[in-house]
């Protein structure tokens, strides 16, 4: 008698078929088509995929055999436009001829996760460098730099070394985007429209406050329409280990003593800074400013200045090139000058040099390659390309001395400031800089809303940062 095909048999067979299908789908795919070799003219090898995707894809440059993975947060355009052009330079072959670079935009979260998982890239730039140097996940380059035939430490702006030096070791050279960070950017059209003399720019916070009161405008429903000076935007926003901190530059104090792992936030300068902040915010209204930022861009660093609803902000040298790209129609109205200082320091021309570096992560098989990238990017030809396509300037003194500032309106101020500054600052290197920044923003808002006095705010900031430094294991 023929065996009947039961329901159980059917289910077994169907399950086996499904399982087989799943295993087949998980199996190795066929090898991808080899990417076209770079031509002598292009130097750029693009992956063979044509599928549009929102996930950033790596830009491959170079024809060497050694792979070098480079991650950055410098945004769309930097991997393909900048490195696409850099790869065409004859010097690229001299420095990086043995390498095939993969340049990829990746967020800080991605980098931290990759490091935690033990699969980091070979190198990275435009990240919170001290987080990685302080936690010993990078390789120092002292030996390679000491053996360099091309560069010496004195060739670079001295304060920028603070960004890539930790506990006496150098972890990277100044890379791509360095130079001075502080200037006051003024929309002179709005100044003149308000009846002020755009040639008599404020030098102190009190003078700027007088401008601010005239420049800040509301509509009939008391909505904020134009801000005179935004005390929370751009370089007033927070504190960074690459760009320093505006209060420290303006009031001349160092907020963190790296050698002794101690904070210096509860001092007269910080109190004065908070008091000053409240004066500006009293004119604007805390709720009004929050609403304005939400309108013109999500939060700070938004396009409010381009939309001409902010008249005066503190910005770095990069603003000159960025405004040419983002809002060329207002560039003729822009004026740059020194950042304001307290009245007692009138006449002080304060400046800070900061910038970026390239960190080489432990586990890399190509440390010489990542070092060669740094030397290459600091050559004149590479620096020209980087400035032309990204607006970034290196920290190489000889390059800066011969740079033609007429190419970009406003840049002459920043170059002049590098010669004429009477007071120089460098960015402090604090291992919990993110916490300091967030807490500073929090207590600053409380002062603005009258929930804390400036004295209480300074003490609170000091206490909480000191506590966090201990809890994070950086002090006892």
């Amino acid at each position, binding site marked *: 008698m023929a065996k009947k095909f039961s329901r159980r048999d059917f289910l077994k067979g169907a*399950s086996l078929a499904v*399982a087989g299908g*799943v295993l087949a789908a998980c199996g190795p795919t066929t090898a991808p088509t080899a990417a076209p070799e770079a031509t002598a003219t292009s130097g750029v090898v693009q992956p063979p995929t044509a599928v549009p995707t929102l996930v950033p894809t790596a830009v491959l440059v170079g024809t060497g055999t050694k792979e070098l993975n480079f991650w950055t947060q410098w945004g769309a355009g930097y991997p393909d436009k900048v490195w696409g052009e850099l790869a065409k330079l004859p010097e690229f072959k001299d420095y990086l001829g043995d390498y095939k670079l993969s340049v990829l935009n990746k967020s800080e*979260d991605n980098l*931290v*996760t990759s*490091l*935690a998982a033990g699969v980091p890239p070979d190198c990275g730039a435009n990240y919170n460098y001290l*987080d*990685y140097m302080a*936690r*010993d*996940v990078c390789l120092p380059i002292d030996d390679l730099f000491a053996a360099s035939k091309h560069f010496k430490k004195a060739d670079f702006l001295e304060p920028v070394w603070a960004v890539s030096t930790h506990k006496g070791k150098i972890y990277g050279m100044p890379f791509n985007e360095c130079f001075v960070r502080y200037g006051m950017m003024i929309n002179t059209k709005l100044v003149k429209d308000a009846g002020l003399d755009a040639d008599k720019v404020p030098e102190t916070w009190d003078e700027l406050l007088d401008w601010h009161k005239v420049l800040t405008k509301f509509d009939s*429903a008391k*909505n*904020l*329409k134009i801000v005179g000076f935004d005390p929370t935007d751009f370089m007033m926003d927070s504190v960074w280990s690459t760009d320093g901190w505006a209060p420290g530059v303006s009031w001349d104090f160092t907020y963190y003593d790296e050698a002794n792992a101690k904070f210096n936030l509860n001092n007269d300068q910080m109190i004065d800074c908070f008091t000053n902040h409240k004066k500006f915010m009293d004119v604007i209204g*805390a*709720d*009004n*400013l*929050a*609403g*304005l930022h*939400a*309108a013109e861009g*999500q*939060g700070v660093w938004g396009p409010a200045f381009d939309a001409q609803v902010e008249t005066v902000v503190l910005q770095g040298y990069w603003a000159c090139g960025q405004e040419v790209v983002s809002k060329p129609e207002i560039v003729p109205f822009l004026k740059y000058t020194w950042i304001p200082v307290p009245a007692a320091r009138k006449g002080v021309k304060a400046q800070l040099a900061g910038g970026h570096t390239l960190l080489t992560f432990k586990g890399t098989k190509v440390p010489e390659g990542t070092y060669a990238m740094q030397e290459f990017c600091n050559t004149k030809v590479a620096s020209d390309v980087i400035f032309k396509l990204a607006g970034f300037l290196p920290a190489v003194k000889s390059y800066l001395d011969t740079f033609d500032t007429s190419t970009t309106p406003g840049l002459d101020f920043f170059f002049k400031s590098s010669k004429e500054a009477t007071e120089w600052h460098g960015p402090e290197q604090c291992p*919990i800089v*993110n*916490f300091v920044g*967030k807490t500073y923003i*929090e207590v600053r*808002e*409380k002062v603005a*809303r009258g*929930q804390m006095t400036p004295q209480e705010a300074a003490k609170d900031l000091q206490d*909480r940062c000191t*506590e*966090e430094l201990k*809890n*994070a*294991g950086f002090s006892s």
Partner: protein
Amino acid sequence: MAVTTAKRQKMSRMERRNFWLGLAFISPWLIGFLLWTVFPLVSSIYYSFTRYDLLRPPVFIGLANFVEIFTRDKTFGVVASNTLYYVLIGGPLSVVAAFLLASLLNLKIKGRSVFRAIFFFPAIVPAVVVAMIWSYLLNTQYGLVNGALQAMGMQVIRFLSQPSLAKPSLIMINMWASGTAMVIFLATLQDVPREYYEAATVDGANAWHKFWNITIPMSSPIILYNLVMAFIWGFQDFTLPQLLTGGGPNQATLFYSLYLYLNAFVYLRMGKAAALAWILFAIIVVFTLITFRLSGRWVYYGGGDD
């Protein structure tokens, strides 16, 4: 009298075969569950007792994270009160809104299916899109809502930029997106026996009497379910506050999940973040238990005494 002792029966060959076959078929899920649920869960318990920044090996510090959170972390109090406000007010409100909507959509009206689709639609819109839409609608200067208010000669409302209004605004947005609960209520309402309403009509009950004495009690188990889900979801809500307000203004919308994220990925305090996660778990468990304990007073189970 002979006493028979129960002996553990050995599995027959067939039963053993079926057991291993069953295990084999569920192994993909089981492996995934162990790897991506159980292992991270157990790991996070361990990390909550360590100082761990993802970049260096964890250092065991005992209960220090928990002690810090409960005794020295000034922000924790703010975060806890914000979250409790959001959950205790937002949760019940969204359930009430969903229930009322479902009640209306249960009426025999023309185009009912169209209305059901329209009211369910917000529930399937991605959270990022919801955030973008509402940030423009509620904007103080240029938003549609304030534009309409100004056109009527009224004062603008600083929905997301005034600390006292930011949380209520987020609650309102969540009520708008309560389509999932609404659908569940709709199914429940359609299951209420018609005879009860007919009997009530015969006894002279009006619409309100029927709603209060029949509809709500018969739906109470699902109301309980949606309420518990709303509480659990409210404790863990991250996307809208992060995108709309970033925790501001003035920490008014700094909720638990946002604070946990800050500690984990911005401050690199993964150990403390793990401790926060387990504290949240404990809070949610306690909340759920209290809710179920109190439910005995108002939930009607038609099937019997539970």
